[in-house]
């Protein structure tokens, strides 16, 4: 790497001066926002109707920050004359974002695609207890979940 070199003291001044003319790389956050990448792990969204209360996410969570309660109900059969169905009904689905490590294991292990990552990150709270998102709030995040993006060449 042979490059033209100025004496160090002068060269340094040149760098800062050039930088000054180049303009900023930052954005003024609350006024303008950068789009996080699609895969960014901002917040976990819950699609309640897909959840079967299988507890898999809560069990795999390394931090134990997912709290799930549910009960079972009898439902009329789908077809005429079929058997009565039992479905699990979700009573409580809370994620404590004060504990969450954003590892994504719960999203990954969910066998029924009930959990999704959303890149939204603006949910800081003044009170730590408010970081416990219940299923209604987690459901609201569904709106912000992006479409999965296409993969790079050579992927299978």
């Amino acid at each position: 790497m042979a490059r033209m070199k100025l004496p160090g003291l002068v060269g340094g001044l040149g760098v800062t001066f050039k930088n000054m003319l180049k303009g900023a790389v930052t954005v003024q956050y609350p006024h303008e926002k950068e789009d996080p990448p699609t895969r960014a792990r901002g917040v976990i969204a819950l699609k309640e109707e897909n959840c079967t209360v299988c507890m898999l996410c809560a069990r795999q969570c390394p931090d134990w920050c997912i709290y799930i309660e549910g009960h079972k109900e009898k439902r009329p059969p789908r077809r005429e004359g079929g058997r009565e169905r039992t479905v699990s009904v979700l009573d409580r689905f809370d994620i404590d974002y004060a504990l969450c490590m954003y590892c994504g294991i719960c999203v990954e292990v969910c066998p029924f695609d009930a959990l999704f990552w959303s890149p939204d990150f603006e949910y800081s709270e003044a009170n730590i207890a408010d970081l416990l998102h219940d299923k209604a709030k987690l459901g609201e995040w569904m709106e912000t979940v992006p479409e999965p993006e296409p993969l790079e060449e050579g992927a299978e």
Partner: protein
Amino acid sequence: MIPTLAVEVGWGTTLALKTLIVLGLVPFGALVLGYTFLLKMMSHMQSRLGPMDPGGFHGWYQLIGDGLKFIQKEDVMPAKADRRVFALAPAVVVVSTFLVFVVLPAGPELVVSDLDVGVFYALAVSSLSVVGVLMAGWASANKFALLGALRAAAQLIAYELPLLLAVVGVVIQADSMSLQGIVSAQANGEIFGIGLIGNPFILTQFVGFALFLVAAQAELTQAPFDMPVAESELVAGYMVEYTGFRFLFFFIGEFGTAFAFSALAATLFLGGWAVPGLDNEGLSTVIGPAVLFAKLMAVAFLMFWVRFTYPRLREDQLQTLAWKYLIPIGLANILVTGALKVWI
């Protein structure tokens, strides 16, 4: 005081007016330099924008707001501090800054007091701040503060000398120690018989100018000579225990002194308020301050440019630089200037 106004005012009123102007000038200078260079220039050099929201236009209100915040803050004093000395120290630092402005001319008549030994006075008074710094460091009862204060003392003493030597060349060339005298010597001077731009001493005394800037940088404890505050080593050096309005005093002192030194450098080396070829005294009085301000900002730009670019020297390296390089160069400069003065 301002002849164009042609209003007779008594000396008491004049004195009050002058005091007010000087009192306003230091915080004003601190604000202007702080905003322009610390907030804006540094940010842009670092590829960011700095504060943008307060005040609407590029965050101009930020520093004023900061100042107000400091005033509101609780005045915390360490339990083991020497209370009186601790409280007095910031004032001493700021006062030394105020006193420099007494002799700085901004126009043919715009000067508080045109002392015959103006240069000498300005440099002597400016070094008073070291007393305040030592007081702050000692009274804080904090080891970091003490280290910072001792560094500051060693450093300011070491750099007083090159600063003085750098100016001696100017004094010799101008035949005057009065700042007004030096300004007029530059305005009316000639370089090889060409008097178009006068003779700003930066041309003939470039070595002196460079020495002055380096030494001023050390006096102001700015990078590369900011060991007394040394953010990464001593946290904030002698200021580490100060909060609220006392810290504000130090801040004003720091940037006010930078303002004063840039003004001094502009006066000594760039021709001060004078515009060569402009003889109209009234007009000079009006545009003088603007001219001085422009020159001052140019000098300040240089100083802050270096501040935001260079790493910090070590204390012993700084002493080496002062005693082994700057002082001999300064002496040689005086020798050469004197010799030329005598023989030409």
